């Protein structure tokens, strides 16, 4: 029973230690941020809404490692809470986009014909609406709420996932073992789920990582504009917005949440690049 996790951990470690430097830095921060998202609120030194210092826009200090915000609240605690919001929302939206995109792509690729044609045309039209424009129009029409933000981000990034997944599926579809399964008389669902899907998991995981980065940037951008996550809840973008008044005093409270977002998105990018680079090198050797 216990041999499985051990073997998994060992192969995980081997993968990690074979990564280039940038990939290892990326992996470190990705693990760190995932841990923060899971544990954040329980390790926060102060209550998220508590005003703990008379000093507004306080500097970095021993008592408040990331300074204090515009009301004198502890920035470290604020960021630990906000990170869970940012990462959680983005994970749900990116998962929804990837799963919907992949499912529709499998359907289109295996069914072919007019279903494929109509679906691909529709996706092409939808991809022509820049994600920020769609998000602004959606918020203008329905007002901002967490379910709406998730829906909007998922809608924005489904066509991209669909495109990648469809081109992968169309390639896999022509391989001999899939043709053999067809000749055996297997159903479309079996061919899509058992023969094609397993062979596109790795590139789709890499694509999922990129969608996650896009969603984090989109949603924190919306929150920064005041059109995303609404108070009293706050994601990392909201923290930048609520402290923007301290910008001209050079308050750390403006920059630290923005840096937090950048370390998250950049490290996911670096990790994916290193992992897919490893895959191409392995394929070339």
């Amino acid at each position: 029973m216990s041999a499985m996790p051990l073997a998994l951990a060992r192969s995980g470690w081997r993968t990690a230690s074979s990564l280039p430097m940038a990939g290892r830095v990326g992996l470190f921060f990705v693990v760190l941020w995932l841990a923060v998202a899971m544990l954040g609120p329980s390790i926060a030194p102060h209550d998220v809404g508590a005003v703990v210092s008379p000093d507004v826009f306080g500097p970095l200090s021993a008592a408040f490692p990331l300074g204090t915000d515009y009301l004198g609240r502890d920035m470290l605690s604020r960021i630990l809470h906000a990170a869970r919001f940012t990462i959680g929302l983005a994970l749900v939206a990116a998962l929804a986009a990837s799963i919907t995109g992949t499912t529709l792509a499998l359907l289109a690729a295996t069914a072919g014909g007019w279903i494929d044609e109509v679906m691909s045309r529709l996706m092409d039209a939808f991809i022509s609406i820049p994600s920020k424009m769609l998000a602004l129009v959606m918020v203008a029409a329905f007002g901002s709420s967490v379910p709406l933000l998730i829906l909007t981000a998922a809608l924005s990034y489904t066509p991209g996932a669909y495109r990648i997944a469809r081109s992968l599926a169309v390639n896999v579809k022509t391989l001999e073992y899939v043709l053999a399964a067809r000749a055996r008389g297997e159903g479309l669902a079996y061919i899509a789920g058992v023969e094609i899907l397993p062979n596109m998991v790795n590139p789709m995981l890499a694509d999922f990582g990129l969608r996650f980065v896009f969603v984090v940037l989109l949603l924190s951008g919306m929150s920064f504009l005041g059109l995303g996550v609404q108070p009293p809840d706050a994601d990392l973008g909201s923290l930048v917005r609520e402290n923007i008044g301290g910008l001209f005093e050079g308050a750390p409270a403006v920059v630290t949440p923005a840096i937090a977002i950048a370390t998250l998105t950049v490290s996911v990018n670096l990790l994916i690049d290193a992992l897919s680079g490893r895959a191409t090198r392995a394929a070339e050797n």
Partner: protein
Amino acid sequence: MADKALAARLVLNRIGVGALTLLVVSAVIFTITNLLPGDAAQEALGQSATPETVAALRAQLGLDKPGPIRYASWLGGLVTGNLGQSFTASMPVTELVATRLPKSLLLAAVTAAVSVPIALAIGILAAMGRGGALDRALSLATLSMVAVPEFLVATIAVLLFAVKLRWFPALSNAVDIQDAGQFFRTYAMPVLTLCFVVIAQMARMTRAAVIDQLSASYVEMAVLKGARPARVALRHALPNAIGPIANAVALSLSYLLGGVVIVETIFNYPGLASLMVDAVTNRDMPVVQACAMIFCFAYLLLVLVADLVAILSNPRLRHR
């Protein structure tokens, strides 16, 4: 001769697809903004309005007609430049847009003028020294830069140049610009922020386009002939890479559309994007619809230009 006809057909076909896509996009935007019915008249008159005046205004605005008819008349208005009346500013949307659009276009033009040469230089240098230290450093830098949120770049720029060094003002009102120095101080920071993201994208795509050409067999031939690397890159590969590079430039410029929303807001720049953000905040639907259509049109236009350049520069269609 047959190839010219083929190219012309491809071009016309592509323009047709673009026009059709724009139509679908307009239908999507109209549908989303009209799913919650009839609130426009209520919104304009406020909560205290009597049902009769709301109904009267609804009839006057044409809100009592069925959806497809309203869509058709809205679409007709878009084409003829009649974008309706703003709820909050109580003036025609066309007038609002006319004051803001040139400012955004100027910002985009300055950004393009600064970013294109830099990005091309970075991309071509990186491609020529493929796999070398410079290439790896640039790859890492551009890979990181594309994932950095615009407001981080903007806040750091303000902290550095406006707060610490005091070189530029932190806000870019762009109202009465009299001389070149003032122009520079107004545009420096928004342009710097926008360039940061766009250059990263453009350099990555340029590098990929040039590498694609450098691995072609005619380049191998030139190398075997004994031509120097700079000559191979500039005389042999580059002329053929112009199409793919122009394609990359047009596509990367479309990233401006997302960035400009954040940048105009943070620097208080009076362009179209900040007009749209204000309209979304106030739920001023006619303005939101008009701005969204202009941005989507600009995006589709850039993608169309990118595709047309790719078609027209394809040597298989040009010669033979």
